[in-house]
């Protein structure tokens, strides 16, 4: 901090070279443009990563303007060497603003709370940008009459704002992308600093500032050149839709994306549902089972932490209790407590008829006791050996033990079209565990043709009673689900056992083939 007894004594006094004044006036235009670009970058990034663009834009712009106010206020504490301070501010803005977009993209997947990082950056840049114009006005005060000075500076400031606001959506985002845009405007800031330092060279020692400016310059150029790689590293580039939530739990990576009304859940990069068509999947999972049971009182759901299957089950007034076992407490908390998500499952996870158990279903079924009238198994696909255990004969034997004598169960069993061998392995395995199995399938646009396997102690019949108000299933379409055309027809498969993991192997083969 400056010495309080020293008044403002320097600035661009009349003796300064004329080139300096020109550089300073041009820099008003540049810093005004850059300042607005960083604000737009932060707002756009926030709405892209966090969703809800109205909220994100207004809070980012509000915080940014407020931070500029803080910066303007703080400018009064700069008591000497205004031009030197201005140069340092430019170098700092170049570093922070230039790296802002790349930094936020990279931080997003790894920080605990992205908002803290976002608003800290917005405040820091805003404060620095808020220092710029007051300092410039003071530096230039000896060159112009006050009337002309204010007019010139504010004119250039607003022109800069116009340039930025037109360039950003029309040229920068479509052509450069957000990461490169940040670096390019960082270069403009550091360019102002370097030009001023070169002009000042004869008058004061500039070596250290020049070195700092050159380091920032080099880092920005490096960032610019590596922009593609940074983009690739950044997780959000993986998803076609804007990511609104991302979190790593000890068990998985949960990502929620949203485009318009379409909300999607991804676990470890695999799509779990899209709100456009999840009703098809969940009606097909639940109603063929509940519709075949005279009095389904006790229902068990294994997996399904999003609460969507539970939503369907709870529509049935005959159900008195639903037990849901999901590995990841983060999942069930999310879908119980976040209003937007709890709305999707109609608050099924906080229903008084619901009991949520966070645990490993593989262990839980061995210790649990039934009977359950209906059991709905909705695990992720058997992409790994650990998940494959949840599709084994040993596991189904335990589930069969929990199933009431007249109970019915179903298992989500991957696509019978893309992976017919894997799909029918589930039926063979359920049969090896002593159950009668029956396959059925439904078309879910986000997934394609999707398969389920129904099982019970006695062969499940055709008679089904469906409730009113379903969007997908009717008596006729329900019956049709049990029909398999030749390309999906049953074929001989091995039984999936703990010690052969036949399903994980065939799944990898069939889907690997499909993915190319």
């Amino acid at each position, binding site marked *: 901090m400056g010495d309080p007894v020293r008044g403002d004594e320097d600035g661009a006094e009349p003796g300064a070279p004329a080139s300096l004044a020109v550089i300073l006036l041009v820099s008003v235009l540049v810093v005004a443009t850059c300042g607005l670009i960083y604000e737009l970058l932060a707002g756009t990034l926030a709405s892209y990563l966090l969703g809800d663009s109205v909220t994100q834009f207004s809070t980012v712009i509000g915080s940014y303007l407020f931070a500029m106010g803080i910066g303007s206020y703080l400018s009064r504490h700069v008591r000497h060497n205004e031009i030197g301070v201005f140069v340092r501010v430019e170098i700092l803005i170049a570093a922070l603003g230039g790296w802002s977009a790349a930094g936020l993209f990279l931080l997003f997947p790894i920080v605990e709370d992205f908002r803290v990082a976002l608003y800290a950056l917005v405040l820091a840049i805003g404060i620095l940008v808020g220092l710029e114009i007051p300092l410039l006005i003071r530096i230039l005060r000896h060159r112009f009459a006050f009337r002309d000075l204010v007019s010139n500076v504010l004119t250039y400031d607003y022109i800069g704002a116009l340039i930025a606001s037109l360039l950003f959506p029309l040229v920068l985002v479509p052509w450069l992308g957000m990461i490169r845009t940040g670096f390019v405007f960082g270069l403009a800031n550091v360019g102002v600093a370097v030009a001023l330092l070169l002009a000042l060279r004869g008058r004061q020692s500039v070596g250290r500032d020049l070195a700092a400016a050159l380091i920032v310059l080099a880092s920005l150029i490096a960032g610019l050149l590596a922009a593609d790689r940074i983009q690739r590293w950044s997780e959000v580039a993986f998803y076609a839709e804007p990511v609104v939530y991302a979190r790593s739990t000890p068990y998985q990576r949960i990502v929620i994306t949203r485009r318009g009304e379409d909300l999607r859940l991804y676990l470890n990069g695999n799509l779990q549902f899209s709100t456009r068509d999840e009703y098809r999947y969940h009606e097909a999972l639940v109603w063929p089972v509940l519709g075949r049971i005279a009095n389904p009182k006790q229902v068990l759901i294994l997996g399904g932490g999003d609460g969507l299957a539970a939503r369907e089950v709870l529509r049935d007034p005959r159900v008195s209790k639903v037990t849901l076992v999901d590995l990841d407490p983060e999942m069930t908390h999310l879908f119980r407590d976040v209003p937007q998500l709890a709305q999707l499952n109609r608050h099924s996870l906080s229903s008084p008829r619901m009991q949520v158990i966070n645990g490993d279903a593989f262990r839980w079924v061995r210790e649990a006791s039934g009977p359950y009238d209906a059991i709905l198994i909705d695990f992720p696909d058997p992409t790994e050996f650990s998940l494959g*255990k949840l599709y084994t004969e040993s596991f189904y034997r335990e589930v069969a033990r929990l199933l009431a004598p007249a109970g019915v169960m179903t298992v989500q069993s991957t696509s019978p079209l893309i992976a017919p061998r894997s799909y029918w392995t589930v039926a063979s395995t359920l049969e090896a565990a002593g159950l009668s199995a029956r396959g059925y399938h439904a078309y879910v646009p986000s997934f394609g043709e999707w398969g389920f396997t129904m099982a019970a102690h006695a062969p499940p019949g055709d008679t089904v009673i469906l409730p009113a108000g379903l969007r997908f299933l009717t008596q006729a379409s329900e019956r049709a689900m049990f029909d398999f055309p030749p390309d999906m027809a049953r074929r001989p498969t091995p039984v999936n056992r703990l010690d052969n993991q036949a399903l994980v192997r065939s799944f990898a083969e069939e889907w690997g083939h499909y993915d190319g």
Partner: protein
Amino acid sequence: MAEPTRRDALKAGAVGAGALALGSCAKPAMAGTLDGADWRRGHMIRDGKFPAPNGAEPRVGILIAGGGVAGLAAAWRMKAAGFDDFVVLELEDRVGGNARSGRNPVSAYPLGAHYLPVPNKEAVALRRMLQEFGMIVGEEGGAPIFDPYQLCADLEERLLWRGGWQEGLYPASGLSREDEIQRDRFTQAMAQLRNAVGADGRPAFAIPRVYSSADPAYTALDKVSFAAWLDDHGYSSPVLRAYLRYCCRDDYGTEPDDVSAWAGLHYFAARRGWAARGDGDRELTWPEGNGRLVSLLLEQTADHVRPAHSVFAIAQQGDEAVVDSFDHKAGSSTRWHASCVIVAMPHFVAARVAPAHTGKGRFRYAPWVVANVTVNRHPKGRGVGLAWDNVSTGSDSLGYVVATHQSASGGDGPTVLTWYLPLSKASPPEARKLMMTRTLAAWQRIIEDDLLTMNPDLAGAIDRIDVWRWGHAMISPTPGFLTDPVRTAAIEARPPVLFAHSDLSGLSLFEEAHYRGVVAAETALAHLGHSFESLI
């Protein structure tokens, strides 16, 4: 699954940059413990510094000196025969020998032995025990059905080879024509040996070892080293030799030069696991390894077991055995009178405790270090996914087994990796010295480096490393061991002093320890006139 890889790379990059930035700061110490077999109590026996026994001299039918697998198996056998007049004295605070286990909030984990192969048909007593323990759940076509939850789940093994993980432990790619020819030749030769029968009608190689043929065509293999045998038979492929070296170190903690050809071949030719449903070639395993078997054995015999009791002298007086023991908790010694004593200690200890009954012989032991590494996420890597046993061709360690492999299904959560290193390169005394002088931090660094070389994805995921040192982890089946007269005499010893330990088989296997314990128990019971139906 391209996405997590990229994210991991990203995270690793960020961590790497952070580490670089903090390069000058000292790294905080890794949590962990440095522990092992209680060598202070062991050295007390070596140095003979015990107070003379005083007070009452208790009398017992059978005294078992040593609570490892052989001692506990002997105790189990007596219980099964309805015999109760016995006591087990164990030097350590906990029984189980090298099948002991530990536990932390994440998982139970082994400290040593961690699996039991499906036993051969000849292992009758062992099968009886597995039946009792609920590990055999039924019968199909006369063959036992093993509990699928206790058979090692797929994926059993993976190998880091040429930059990626592959299934199985034998390299599957990048082999020369000659490598392939020798591999196939070796595989065929082992298949033949597995079915070979000696002139006495017994299998060439069996488990328990005692059922193996005494035909000199096979016993002569004890005279040469495994390495020499491989040379003689033209097995020169570096890939094959590296694999065989791994096997020798895995089973015996010893280099192929120091293992007899008989033992080297036994590893490949003795297993004929008997099970229904094609499970004969599988293993039983548990989060705590063979600690599960120990705790089940102990459950039945706990009333008879006295831990923290060192047996330091055994002698024969008339028809009975006189046994002196030291109680580490009370700090006093006791003299026992037993109708029979079963010396179920490692032989190098037995030779000091009962010098009148046995000698040092050619017993040589391999030192091992076992580390339990608690990680906050599962290891991954390029290629095939995580297996139970994970081995790298580029490491001198034997890799790691995953403690939660059997018990959990889901996700990427925390687990414990049990990491194994036999110190087979230096001579055992040198290696033991190194093992005892190296600090916890030094061991942790070695283990962390080894793990991160195998699994760079574990950067930042290691929460603690607990190191366990076994000075005498396993008996080494060195050339000539079979004909060691000390060994033969110990096997043939008669009451009142009997010996029971896997050391006598020269193979550090649960099956051998169990067999030796059962045989000694039955001999002692017969000596006492207690009637039973033999399991041998």
